[in-house]
Every structure is written in C-alpha cells, then in structure tokens.
C-alpha cells in the first residue's frame, strides 16, 4: 500500500541485502542491465544509446528526490541544462579535458542546487514544485541573456576531446564506453546513498516528516543534502549530453525538460532503482521512432502521462516488481 500522501513504491517484507545492499532480484536486474549496456552498441546506434544513458542518469538523479524524499521538483532542467552549458563552455573555450569539464558541470549543478534548494526545501508539496519551477524559469532567463551560452544558438561544435589525455572520444564507441561508465557509477552512487543510514533518514522524511523531526533529525539538512546531490548528478548528466552531441542549448534549461524528466520517472516507476532507466529508455526510444509524426509525439506523451497516473502509478518497473513480488 502506498503511504498516504507519498510517492512510495510497494513495500515488501524479506528485504535482506544480498550483495552490496542489493536484494537478490536487484542483483539479477543489475547484471542484466550491465549485459545490455555491454552488448547494446553492437546492435543499436551508439549515439542513440548515449542519449538514452544521459537521460537515464538525469532521471535517476531526479528520482533520488521524488522517490526517496518525496519532493517533486518541477525545475530540474535548470541543473541539467546548466551542467551542459558549463561542460560545453569549459571544453570548447578553455580546452579542458572531458573528465574535468563534466565534473565542473556537476559541481556547478550542485552549487545551483545548494542555492535554490536552500530556499525551496522550506516548502512542501505543491509549493515546493512551484518554487522550483520559478527558480528554473529564472535560470532560463539567465541563460537566454548570458553571453557565454550563445543565446538560442547554444554552444555549438563542442569538442569531445581525449579522455585522460589518451582515449579519443570523437570515436563513437569510445564515447559510448565513457557514457556507460559514468552512468553506472552514478547509478551505483544513488543506490549507495539510498541504502545508507542517510538514505534511511530520507525515506523516513518521505513517510512522515514530523516524526523524523521528533526523533531528533534535522530534516531540512537531510533534504538539502539530497537536493544538492540530485542537482549535482543532473549537472553531470547534462554535461555528458553536451559532449555526446557537441551542443548545449536552451532546450535543456526550458521547463518542458523538467516535465520530460518527471514523465520518465513516472513511466519507469517512482522510487524504484531501475525505474528511471526503463522510463528514460521508453521515452527516448519513442521520441526517436516517432520523430516523423510531428505533433503526434506530444499527444502520445500526453496519453502515456494520463495512463500512468490513472492506471500504472507504480510505473513499469514497479508493476513488474509487484507482479514478481520483488523490489526492483
């Protein structure tokens, strides 16, 4: 049963950690995921897979906040887009190596998250969603005005560079392995956070914040910490994306991008570890296959939103997990 007022997945008994905090089912799913990542580029177009992984990381970061703290941020595009700009700018104009520019993108995302989060976490529910949206709009305005972002043209022709000075990333396969590596690291990091004592406190805040407070936890500090982590990872995802495509644009800071990441997490399953990946895969694949159909893509996305909310609130992964009686 979902906790009243929360976005939690299904709770199951029998939760012992099997390996690295994973349950048995999660280990199987994780091995499957790694296998998919390893053989994927030999069957599918690598750039498509890279896009998918960037968004999957973004959705995982977002899910950390909504799935485990119960905070719906409607402005996550700000950190994603800003990360993209910073990575793109430093890689192109300062000639920084990719690993550094991505880290910088993540750092700026986290810093932005610290400022916005510090204000936003004082509010709950819809007010939280609205204030994050408001700040994201201000970040958007800043990006339109600021010189370094290149306005609506964005930062174009961003070089991918050489990873650690040796691996030539302009070859798609090399870039793919880097992207997959960053995704897996990010994924495991989020998993680690969720299963740490820190993560337990987060979940207790999601379930019942007053009680967590009464137990002596400074819930605001915990929420802010989660917010910053989420924003930082979103920044990394944005930076990675701008290297993959060689372009950083206003699209990634616009509020529709915030809506898209909500959709991905919702489709995959809020509060599930694998949900954001699956959700991102579904949405990105759909956008790719349906690009010819123009406005119908919007309609189909809307239909998916409606169906998910009405019938599959657990999302794909949540439903499968529920059906198999395991937590995924």
């Amino acid at each position, binding site marked *: 049963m979902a906790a009243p007022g929360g976005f939690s997945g299904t709770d199951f008994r029998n939760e012992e950690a099997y390996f690295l905090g994973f349950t048995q089912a999660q280990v199987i799913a994780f091995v499957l995921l790694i296998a998919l990542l390893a053989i994927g580029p030999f069957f599918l177009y690598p750039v498509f897979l890279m896009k998918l992984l960037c968004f999957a990381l973004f959705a995982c970061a977002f899910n950390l906040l909504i799935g485990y703290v119960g905070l719906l941020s409607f402005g996550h595009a700000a950190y994603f887009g800003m990360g993209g700009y910073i990575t793109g700018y430093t890689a192109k104009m300062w000639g920084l190596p990719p690993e550094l520019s991505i880290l910088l993108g993540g750092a700026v995302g986290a810093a932005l998250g610290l400022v916005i989060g510090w204000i936003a976490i004082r509010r709950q529910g819809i007010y939280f969603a609205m204030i994050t949206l408001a700040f994201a709009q201000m970040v958007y305005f800043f990006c339109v005005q600021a010189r370094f972002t290149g306005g609506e043209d964005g930062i174009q022709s961003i070089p991918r560079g050489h990873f650690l000075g040796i691996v030539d990333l302009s070859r798609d396969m090399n870039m793919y392995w880097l992207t997959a590596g960053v995704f897996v690291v990010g994924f495991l990091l989020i998993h680690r956070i969720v299963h740490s004592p820190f993560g337990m406190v987060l979940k207790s805040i999601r379930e019942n914040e007053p009680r967590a407070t009464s137990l002596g936890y400074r819930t605001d500090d915990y929420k802010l910490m989660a917010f910053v982590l989420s924003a930082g990872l979103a920044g990394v995802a944005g930076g990675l994306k701008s290297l993959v495509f060689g372009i950083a644009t206003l699209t990634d800071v616009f509020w529709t991008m915030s809506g898209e990441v*909500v959709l991905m997490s919702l489709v995959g399953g809020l509060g599930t570890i694998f949900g954001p990946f699956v959700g991102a895969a579904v949405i990105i694949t759909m956008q790719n296959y349906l690009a010819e159909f123009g406005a119908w893509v919007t309609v189909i996305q*809307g239909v998916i*939103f409606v169906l998910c*909310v009405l019938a599959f609130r657990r999302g794909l992964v949540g439903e499968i997990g529920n059906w198999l009686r395991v937590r995924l």
Partner: protein
Amino acid sequence: MDEIFGIPAPLLFGQLLLGLINGAFYALLSLGLAVIFGMLNVINFAHGAQFMMGAFAAWMLLEYAGLNYWWALLLAPLLVGAFGVILERTMIARLYKLDHLYGLLLTFGLGLIIEGVFRNQYGSSGLPYRIPPQLSGAWDLGFMFMPVYRGWVVAVAAVMCLATWLVIEKTKIGSYLRASTENAALVQAFGINVPRLMTLTYGAGVALAAFAGVLAAPIYSVNPQMGSNLIIIVFAVVVIGGMGSILGSVITGFGLGIIEGLTKVFYPEASSTVIFVVMAIVLLARPAGLFGRA
C-alpha cells in the same frame, strides 16, 4: 511633471493601463485555477489548453455554425465547461484520494494531448478572428490611443471576477462549496451531493478559462500554443495570491499585470521573468502566498 524616472508621463500611464488589461486575463485565468484548487485540491495544468479551446470554440462557432462573437461568449464556455465535466467524471475524480501531485501530472498530460490534437488539426500559424463590429474602434485618451475592445475586456473581466466572488461568498451553493473545502465528509453527511458539487466546480473553473479564451481570440492569434505561453505565468499568479484564495488571485492577477507593464518600460527583456522574481520573494516572506492561509 512631464517625466517620471526618465519616461514621459503619458507613456507611463499608457503602459500602466495596458498592464491592467493583461492583468485582467491573468485574473480571469487564475480565478478559475483558484476555484478548482480550492475545491478539488487539483492543480489544473490543463488550464492553458482549456483557455485555448475557448478561443478555438469561438472560431469554430463562427466558421462552422455562423454564430458571432456574442454567441461564442455564451456558448464556448458552456461547451468547454461540459468537456471539463467529462474529464472530471472520467479521470480527475479518481485521483482525489491520492497525493495532490498526481492531479498535477494528470492534467499536465491532458494539456499535452489537447494541444497536440489542435496542432495536428489546425497547424500552428494561427487563425484569424475579428473584433466584433460593436467593439471596434478606439478612444483617444489624450495620452494614448485606447482600443474599445481592450476596455471591454477589463470591464467584463472585473464583472466576472466580482460575480464569481459573490457566488462563492454570498450564495447557498457557495457556502456548500466552502464547507466541503473544509470538511467534505461532514457536508456529505448533511445530505449534500459533494461529488456532484466537485464536478460542477471543475466545469465552472474550466468554463472561466474558456471565457477568457473567447475574450482573447480577437486580440491574440488563435493558435494551439496560446495557452501554454500563459499558463506558467498564471500559476505564478495563483501561488503568489495564495493557493485557492479567490480574492488573492484576482488582486494578484491585476497587480502583476501592472508590475509586468512597468517592467516592459524599464527593462523589457525581463518582463516575462519579473513575475517569478516576485513569486520567489513572496514565498520566502509568506509561505502560503499573500492571501492564503498556511
């Protein structure tokens, strides 16, 4: 006193007036949102799409049925309101027991669908809709040239806001509404059909959006995106005014229209962002908005 802050006074007055007119649209739209939120606890993200439907309904009534603006003003809100009633009965009503955010996500999806369907059907360069002959022309106010139609918009919007406020505060049905916002179970126990009340409220909120859409049709291009440009701003208005507060949303709507108008004179590039700055400040100082109850 020819100049105020380096801007010629007549120009400044003109801008204030125009800001007030935009404020009328904000007020009407946020009024509908506030009514829906106050009663149903649903953030109606499809409000912009329903506003657009109102404008399209006016255009269709003229194009296919030959009915003019005045008929549209009456019929379009009814038609779109009926559509809202269907949405409420079939979908939104299922979500009342869940977290409010699900309502936001559902209506967000509905908005995408409506907008996409209209874009497929009618393209996106927009359709022409003329100002009714009775309201065309303009008054020369001395400091500016004021189209009659804009004056009409402000007047009608103000009347509509007042009427809604009266219905909610002074009538019996309004008292039922307010009561069920406080405690729906108790009101139900008194034998009042609360689900029907909620359906009607949603329908009425949507009809208000459609009414604003008809008012907007002659001055803005009737196109599928016309609502999505406005909706984010209107959300900010509702949040600043205090979620669910009727009076708050009306006053904030007009007030922000004026603030925006002034920004257009002094720093036009920021005119779409100033509202969000105000919103952030207000939320920091008064978490529940200017007129909301915490």
